[in-house]
């Protein structure tokens, strides 16, 4: 199944590894910030309703 990358295995894995780490980090940070801001906005909207 795994292709024989020969002497270039390190280069290919490094390129793919960096890509997955950077994209994974970007997706995770985007989702975390989205959830955090949504929660804070909901709390603020609640306060606004309660306080008029």
């Amino acid at each position: 199944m795994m292709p024989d990358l020969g002497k270039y295995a390190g280069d290919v894995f490094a390129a793919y590894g960096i890509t997955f780490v950077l994209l994974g980090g970007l997706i995770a940070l985007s989702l975390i910030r989205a959830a955090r801001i949504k929660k804070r906005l909901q709390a603020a909207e609640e306060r606004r309703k309660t306080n008029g």
Partner: protein
Amino acid sequence: MASLWEWANPRKFMTWTDKALPVISIFAAVLFLAGLVWGFFFTPDDYRQGATVKIFYIHVPSAMIAINAWLMMLVASLIWLIRRHHVSVLAAKAAAPVGMVMTLIALASGAIWGKPMWGTYWEWDPRLTSFLILFLFYVGYLALWEAIEDPDTAADLTSVLCLVGSVFAVLSRYAVNFWNQGLHQGASLSLDKAENVADVFWYPALVALAGFVLLFLALVILRTRTEIRARRLHAIEMRERVQG
């Protein structure tokens, strides 16, 4: 038929993207993984480049997104400057980190690919240098957003910076044609059959590219939704502060 401006109204944008985002995300994940798995596991080595050709499936799509993300930001910034449309400038702000990461991936994967093929990680070649400058413009654009407290002033100044940076986005794409020198070759993907890569590399690359495009779209929508909420939150908090 509803006009484009109506769809970009913040309330309407939140409604339709709430339904569209999960669908786009699923298609993005499927195409992204399908393209990379196809390219990595089921394509032959190149007769000259050997197994390093597998870097092609991440390097080319990320580079194309890096350039086109900036051009998308340019259009969104122009809409802000001309029409003062808040969602457009928030979409530009949302796209910047995605474009920056894509530029970094293109630079890193290119350097890793360059070492075995060119014998060096880096060369001050027109394509590579203009890409590095594009990356610095992304960093500067995001830093400017963070540095200015008033959102409308930040939107104005970052939009102007985006106009200036567009020169380097275009240069990154056409540097090889303009200067006709350096290590980097011309476009690998082309609609001209004679210039394009062989079909065995082209089809998986096309699927991977579609995956990258949809991933970019999904992330920009997600982040734009967050920016719209953050702006609303900022407005409520400011009102609370004024009211004591």
